[in-house]
């Protein structure tokens, strides 16, 4: 199951025609204590680079963008009760939403793990 990364610090796991989206460990570390995650409604159509979710840390609100085009098919309801899951398990249990893959060619513009690590090291 390949994982891609955006330069806005989202990750996306691709599984056939659907994908799971979250924010990276680097991102949660930068945001600090997360107190609320506003997730998209199931059924919402997302555009690559468009607003998808909002993360509220103690200090600020930050936008999360959709890595690709597609439709939201499921959201992580655990985040409602325990938004800090994004801090403790950003890469797995702190996932945000699942979506359809409208255009698989969009993955070509994203980074793989190695490229993303080099990108973070350059910041």
């Amino acid at each position, binding site marked *: 199951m390949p994982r891609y990364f955006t330069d806005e*610090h*989202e990750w996306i796991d691709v599984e056939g025609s659907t994908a799971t989206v979250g924010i990276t460990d680097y991102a949660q570390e930068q945001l*600090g204590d997360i107190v609320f995650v506003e997730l998209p409604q199931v059924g919402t159509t997302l555009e690559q680079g468009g607003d998808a979710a909002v993360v509220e840390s*103690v*200090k*600020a*609100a930050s*936008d999360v963008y959709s890595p690709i085009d597609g439709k939201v098919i499921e959201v992580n309801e655990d985040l409602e009760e325990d*938004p800090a899951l994004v801090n403790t398990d950003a890469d797995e249990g702190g996932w945000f939403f699942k979506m359809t893959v409208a255009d698989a060619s969009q993955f070509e513009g994203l980074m793989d793990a190695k490229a993303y690590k080099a990108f973070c090291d350059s910041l």
Partner: protein
Amino acid sequence: MSEDTEIEDLPLEALPLDAWHRAQGARMVPFAGYEMPIQYEGIVAEHNWTRENAGLFDVSHMGQLLLSGPGVDAAVEAVLPIDLATLKVGSQRYSLLLDENGGVLDDLMVSRQADALYLVVNGACKWDDIGHLREHLPDEITLNHLDNRALLALQGPKASAALARHAQGGPDLATLTFMKFANYVLGGHDAWIARAGYTGEDGFEISIPAYAAEEIATLLCGEPEVKPIGLGARDSLRLEAGLPLYGHDLSPETSPIEAGLIFGINKRRRSAGGYPGAERINREIAEGTQRKWVGLKLDGRMPAREGAEVFADDTMVGTVTSGGFSPTLGQPIAMAYVDAAYAANGTELEIAVRGKRLPAAVSPMPFVPHNYYRGS
């Protein structure tokens, strides 16, 4: 993912403790023209540590000013609504720098030293304050900007125990009650210590020579009760304590009476006037204001931030000036100016955030009780 960042025009300056903060693992951000620590281990952990133990804050970006010269009291009373006749040596008082309209230019602390008045003003306003004071004070008043001094705040229920192990050459800390001020020797260096702060907890603000800042910060953080705390927790702590932040809750567009800061207009000055904006302020004291600054407690977990609009049904009745998540209460809290008709405690309102309406109730401030030391 993106975060709003402030645009800074001028190159950022380093504070005396810059290298020390970095060595403690701080994340540094631009603030008031300086690079400052926003957090070390995390805002919530630092917030809770300060409420339960003691936190050391570097507030050296704030302006420390000394005013002296013949007739300094009368000269300062022409600029500030303070009654200096009742400010004794060793006492500190909150005051306000007002414009001719009674709008707030800054809020500040004034302490009386033996031969001078010592002012602590906000970092983001200090250059404007200095210009304003120099313009409005007569030439024979000396204004000395103490940019060779650092300022630390030690805050929390265990601050006194930690500081008592090192503060020498001054009155017993047990006699230094809230808003008192005295000179000490701390780690071998002269230190001006006020029992005051910006967290709602017992604590101290400690003015020291800049060259001694690293040594004294290390000394205090060597105490088991003390950890360094960043600006992030400073903001969440002051929010819970119901204390206004200049540039957000106070500005030239707000009057101290709207903000509930009537205690900043000392009693003699309310009737006598003779300070900038006295006409409006006296009128507002007599007649009340159209809007009032209030606390709001929100339902749910989604915070409302500065700028969010406040509604009573379909009518917009106010604007949020500060807001965030209270780690102590485990819920979002906010401060807002609202129409006076909606300012009573318990009034149910709504705050608009990203197209949603968040239910909120007007709440007394502080949100978390103050824990000031007023003597045993």
